[in-house]
């Protein structure tokens, strides 16, 4: 076993830090952290990072990537995320297109996603089909011409504000077909028949400060009414959508962002205690030690997925990381808040304490337990894939 990063990544860390010291100004940081990919300042910074070869580092050169290894991309993501920036990966939907797309789709979409010309929002969940993706009701009806007509609605869609496209799963079979009757589409957001309706979330009013890292300030309900989707925007086979989504989700999970977001409040708690003359009360130090050790376990579970290789952590390892991290972040924020006292629940705008960072994190942390199908579905995955314990043995 070898827990070290490859020597080739050492200089890379220094290079990224030097780059950020030069280009990441105080004015620019909030723009980038807000994630508004359409903003000119965002685009200009992204183009600079792209020119350094730090976007989609592990992706094939043929599709606009850098052809390097997963560890290099992980290090890039880690260094940028230390400054609260999501840089390194190709972008939403790229993994699914790489795995299940036609060559024409790969050539068309992936380079544009990497350049952020195209920005996908994942339109998977519905009000009655979240964890149970097989229950999707949004319907795509195939016409004689080969095109599809889409009707239905999606909920809790993130990133709609700056998105140009949706990665959408719709029912093309009968409801009784369940997972065998689903198809994935790459839907242009500007098509006629699409309306978006922002939903207020726990982070909307007041808006969560940058660095909250849990929960979205905006989610959308997206309605499709007789929206015509060209045949060449279907991803994978008709009724093969379950495989498109299920097999590529593990690919997205070999990232440091999840565990780094999870330990952010613990690291700040540690820094606050370190700054106190007595370095914290006995209670605070006990909590810090426990949270520190369990946070390190989150880091190792993520590094294990990386070690197995992007896409190679589908045996349950990625699910373990997701569960551990989600439950950790809920526990950590609540425990730290209890130690901090009344100010820990003050939202942004009160002018007291940390600007609402902890309070917004408290509100948003439980949302992490709903990611990737939710911790209940993830536990089913682990039991089935790693222990051969299935619903019907």
């Amino acid at each position, binding site marked *: 076993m070898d*827990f070290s990063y490859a020597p080739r990544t050492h200089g890379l860390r220094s290079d990224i830090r030097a780059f950020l010291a030069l280009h990441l100004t105080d004015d620019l940081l909030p723009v980038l952290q807000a994630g508004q990919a359409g903003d000119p300042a965002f685009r200009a910074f992204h183009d600079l990072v792209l020119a350094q070869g730090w976007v989609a580092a592990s992706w094939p050169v043929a599709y606009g990537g850098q052809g390097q290894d997963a560890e290099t991309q992980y290090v890039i993501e880690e260094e940028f995320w230390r400054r609260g920036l999501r840089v390194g990966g190709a972008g939403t939907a790229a993994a699914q297109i790489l795995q299940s797309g036609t060559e024409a789709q790969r050539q068309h979409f992936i380079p544009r996603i990497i350049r952020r010309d195209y920005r996908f929002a994942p339109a998977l969940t519905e009000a009655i089909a979240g964890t149970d993706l097989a229950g999707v009701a949004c319907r795509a009806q195939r016409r004689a011409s080969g095109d599809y007509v889409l009707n239905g609605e999606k909920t809790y869609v993130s990133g709609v504000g700056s998105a140009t496209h949706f990665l959408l799963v719709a029912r093309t079979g009968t409801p009784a077909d369940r997972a065998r009757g689903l198809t994935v589409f790459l839907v242009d957001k500007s098509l006629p028949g699409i309306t978006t309706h922002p939903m207020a979330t726990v982070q909307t009013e007041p808006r969560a400060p940058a660095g909250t890292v849990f929960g979205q300030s905006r989610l959308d309900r997206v309605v499709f009414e007789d929206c015509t989707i060209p045949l060449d925007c279907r991803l994978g086979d008709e009724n093969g959508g379950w495989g498109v989504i299920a097999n590529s989700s593990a690919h997205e999970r070999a990232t440091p962002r999840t565990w780094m977001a999870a330990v952010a409040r613990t690291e700040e708690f540690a820094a606050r205690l370190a700054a106190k003359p007595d370095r914290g009360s006995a209670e605070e130090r006990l*909590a810090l030690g*426990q949270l520190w*050790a369990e946070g390190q*376990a989150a880091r190792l579970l993520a590094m294990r997925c990386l070690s197995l290789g992007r896409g190679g952590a589908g045996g349950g390892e990625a699910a373990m990381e997701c569960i551990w991290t989600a439950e950790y972040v809920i526990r950590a924020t609540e425990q730290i808040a209890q130690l901090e006292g009344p100010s820990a629940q003050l939202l942004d705008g009160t002018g007291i304490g940390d600007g609402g960072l902890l309070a917004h994190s408290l509100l948003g942390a439980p949302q992490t337990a709903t990611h990737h199908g939710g911790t209940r579905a993830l536990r089913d995955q*682990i*039991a089935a894939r790693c222990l051969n*314990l299935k619903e019907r043995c």
Partner: protein
Amino acid sequence: MDMALFSAERSYCEEARSALARGEAGLAEMLARALATADAPILAGLLLEEAGAAGADLTVAARVAAAIWQGVDQPVTLALQGERNPWGIAATPFTAENGQGLNGAALAVPGSSAPCDIVFAYRDADGRPSAGRIAADHPALSSSDLICADRSRLHLVHMQALPLTDLAKPATAQPEQLLDLAALCAAALMTGFARQAMTLAVAHAKDRRLFGRTLGEFQVTRHLAADMLMDVEASTLLAREAFWATARYAGPGHLAAQAKLVANTRCVGICRTAQQMLGGAGFVHGNRVHDLYRRALTASLIFGTTPDHAHRLADAVTGGEVQPRMTAPMLSTLSTEEVLL
């Protein structure tokens, strides 16, 4: 980076499994083989995982910790802590006062069934922590047997006016490192207990039928099993990283505290869950899962409790030993050759 076992490590584990069935001779052989390699701590850690799965007690952890510390396997007893908290170099069980020699009492974890030396931690006349070694039959020592929850044996060693001049100072007289290694070795042993308890419980869940289904077909059982696996994997990764760091750097440092803290809570929890999954059988004397639970319970209270290690970590994080960032160890101040932060 490759966190899976290399083929040589996998072969070593397989051989260790067979060798441990031969008892003392097999253990000594495998430990000697580990110590002869450049990655001695890594292999020794794997040996402890296998020993834990086979149901060994803390004797093996003490022996391996001393062997890594000394670089050779010589049967010794470790006397590093008093009978109560706290654990740590600030609370050595023996102290030298007024030039009258060493005094105090300590729990001694046997390193061998045969009479052997005692390696112990003490505070010298200037208050500095140190480590020493003395023959167990020295006239300044007396001991009594204690029966542990897992039915293994500890000794309570009393020391009265032991002359400092009678001590042998180990070549690598770094008592902090010895304490860290003892905690880490106990953690690795505990991951072995937990993995074996989980394996037995899952096998039971696949076999046992109730209400027309196997136990494992109930979602509540599957989720308990998934949690057991997640917890044992997390505990194992922490222990393995600490052994890896020991092989590469001066010692495990605070990584040992991380590993022992999580093992204390998660590995005991895994054994407890496994015991519950077995129902009444889990509470029957001689049942393997029950015995593993006892082992884990005892190990969680020796070589540092959860609060002990939490405070050790808080000291490291807030006191400048490491930066308050959860980086990989080679990116923290543990290493001087690759410090990047």
